[in-house]
C-alpha cells in the first residue's frame, strides 16, 4: 500500500474512482437509448475546448466542459429538428470539434499538438489540485442526476413516446442527459483521455448486462466494474510504466470477455430452471410424423 503515500497518487486514485463511478452511471442511459457512441462524439467536440483553454491560458478542463455542453445542446437540437440529415450534421460537429482543437492548440503561444497528448489519452500523473476540484464538482453533479433521477431517465430512455404521455418533461430530461454526458467526458478526460472516454461509458454496461436481468443490477455491476478497472489501471500504472488510460480500457474489455464466458452456462441453467417451474418439458415430447421420411428410414 506504499502507493498511497505520494500526493499525486492520492489525487490520481480519487480521480480514477470518480471516473469509474460516473462514466458507467451516465453510459447506461446512453446504451439504453442506443446512443452508445455519443460519448465518443462529445470527446471529439471537447478537443476544441482543450485547445481554447490553451489559447486563452485558462483551465482546459472547464473550457472542455463549456464547449462540450454547447456541443451536446447542438446535438440535441439536431435530434429534435433535423431528422433527415442528422447523421451528417453530427459527423460535421464531431470532426469539426477535433480539427478545431488541433488548430487552436497550434495557434496558442508555445503550443503544439504534443500538448494535446495528455488530454487525448489521459495523464494521471499530471492531475493537479485544481483539476481534482473540477473533477469532484462535476462528478457530484453526474452522480446526483444519474441516481436521483434514475426513474425518470429510465423512462425516457426506455420509451420516449410513452414517457411523454406520463407528463415527464422529456426534452428537458434529454438535455440533462446530454449535459451530464458532457460533464462525464470532462471528468474522465484526465484519466482515460478523450479518445477512450466512450469505452468506459459503454463497455462496463455491456459487460454487466451479460449477467443481469434488471436495470438496477446492470447499473450496480457496471459501476462496480468501472471502479475496479479504473483503480486497477491506476495502481498498475504506479508499478509498471504503461499508459493508465489504455490499461483501464483493456481491463474493461477483459471484464466483458470474462462475463460473456460466465453468461452462457448461467443462461442455460436459468432457462432450465424456468422450464421446470413452468412444467414445460425440456424437449419436444411429440414425435413428428413427416410423410415420406418415415418410409425412407424403414
Amino acid at each position, binding site marked *: 500500500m506504499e502507493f498511497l503515500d505520494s500526493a499525486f497518487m492520492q489525487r490520481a486514485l480519487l480521480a480514477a474512482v470518480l471516473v469509474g463511478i460516473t462514466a458507467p452511471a451516465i453510459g447506461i442511459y446512453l446504451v439504453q437509448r442506443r446512443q452508445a457512441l455519443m460519448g465518443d462524439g462529445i470527446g471529439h467536440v471537447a478537443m476544441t475546448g482543450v485547445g481554447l483553454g490553451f489559447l486563452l491560458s485558462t483551465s482546459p478542463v472547464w473550457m472542455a466542459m463549456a464547449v462540450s455542453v454547447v456541443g451536446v445542446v447542438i446535438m440535441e437540437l439536431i435530434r429534435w429538428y433535423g431528422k433527415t440529415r442528422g447523421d451528417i450534421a453530427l459527423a460535421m460537429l464531431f470532426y469539426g470539434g477535433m480539427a478545431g482543437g488541433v488548430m487552436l492548440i497550434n495557434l496558442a503561444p508555445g503550443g503544439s499538438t504534443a500538448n494535446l497528448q495528455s488530454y487525448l489519452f489521459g495523464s494521471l500523473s499530471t492531475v493537479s489540485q485544481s483539476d481534482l476540484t473540477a473533477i469532484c464538482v462535476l462528478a457530484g453533479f453526474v452522480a446526483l442526476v444519474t441516481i436521483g433521477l434514475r426513474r425518470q431517465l429510465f423512462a425516457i430512455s426506455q420509451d420516449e413516446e410513452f414517457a411523454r404521455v406520463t*407528463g415527464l418533461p422529456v426534452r428537458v430530461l434529454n438535455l440533462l442527459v446530454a449535459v451530464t454526458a458532457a460533464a462525464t467526458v470532462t471528468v474522465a478526460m484526465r484519466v482515460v483521455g478523450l479518445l477512450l472516454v466512450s469505452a468506459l461509458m459503454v463497455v462496463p454496461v455491456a459487460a454487466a448486462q451479460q449477467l443481469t436481468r434488471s436495470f438496477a443490477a446492470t447499473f450496480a455491476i457496471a459501476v462496480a466494474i468501472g471502479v475496479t478497472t479504473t483503480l486497477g489501471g491506476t495502481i498498475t500504472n504506479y508499478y509498471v510504466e504503461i499508459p493508465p488510460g489504455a490499461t483501464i480500457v483493456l481491463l474493461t474489455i477483459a471484464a466483458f470477455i470474462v462475463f460473456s464466458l460466465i453468461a452462457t452456462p448461467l443462461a442455460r441453467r436459468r432457462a432450465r430452471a424456468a422450464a421446470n417451474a413452468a412444467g414445460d418439458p425440456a424437449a419436444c415430447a411429440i414425435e413428428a410424423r413427416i410423410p415420406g421420411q418415415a418410409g425412407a428410414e424403414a
Partner: protein
Amino acid sequence: MDDAPVSAGEPVIALRGVTAELGSRPVLRGIDLTVRRGEVVALLGANGSGKSTAIRTVIGQVPVSGGEVEIFGTPRRRFRDWKRVGYVPQRTTAAGGVPATVTEVVSSGRLSRARFGLLRKADREAVRRALELVGMADRAKDSVDALSGGQHQRVLIARALASEPELLIMDEPMAGVDLASQEILAETLRAQVAAGASVLLVLHELGPLEPLIDRAVVLRDGCVLHDGPPPEAVGQHALPGHDHVHPHTSDITPVRTGLLS
C-alpha cells in the same frame, strides 16, 4: 357491454378538422373524432390510412397542422393532467438497449402519479395490481426480453394501467398477440370499461374485442369514411386492407366464448 350508452357524458377526446403531415405528405386531411366518457371507440382502416397518426396527434407525438385536439375538454397544448391517460404504443417503440424487469418497465407508468419520481408503498402496490390485472404478476422479476410477444404486450398494458387512468389510448394492442393473451387483454379491457374507463383504440380488425366496442370510426386516406356502430362481420370483411386472421375458427380454445359472452 352492448347496452352502454352511445352518446353519454362529455367528450374525453375531441378532434375537430385535424390535419397533419409526415414530412410533406398529408396523412390526415381534416378528421373529426369524438370519444365520450365511458365509450369504447375503435379506429379502423387499412395500413397507411392515418389511424396511428390520428392517435399520435392526441398524445402530442405528431404535431397537427390544422384543427383542434382536446383531451378532457382542455386543448392538447395546455393539457397537463397526464395521470388520467394510459397510453399503449405500438409494441415496436419500446425496446431499450439495457435489460429491464417487468416491474421496472411497469413502474414507469406510475411516474405520472409519483411526486419527484419517488415510488411509495401505495405506488408499488398499484404496479403490482396492474401486473395482476394482465396476469403477469408471476413474471414480475423476469427480464422483458425473455417474454413472448403477447406477454410483452400485456406488460405494456399493465404499464398504462399503473397510473389508474380514466382514458386508455391503445395503438394496435392485439397485433402479434397469441390467442391466450388476446383473451386476457379482452378481459382486462372489459373490467376497465365496467369500472368507467373510456377507450380509444386502433385496431386492424375487431377480433375478440368486438363485443366491447360501442362505435367504430373507419379511416381511408386520412379521411373519416364511417362513424357509427361497429361494422358487422360482412361489413368488416369488406373493409379496405382487412386480412383474414380471425381466431374464431380455432377449436382448441373452448374458454373463449365464456370470457367474451
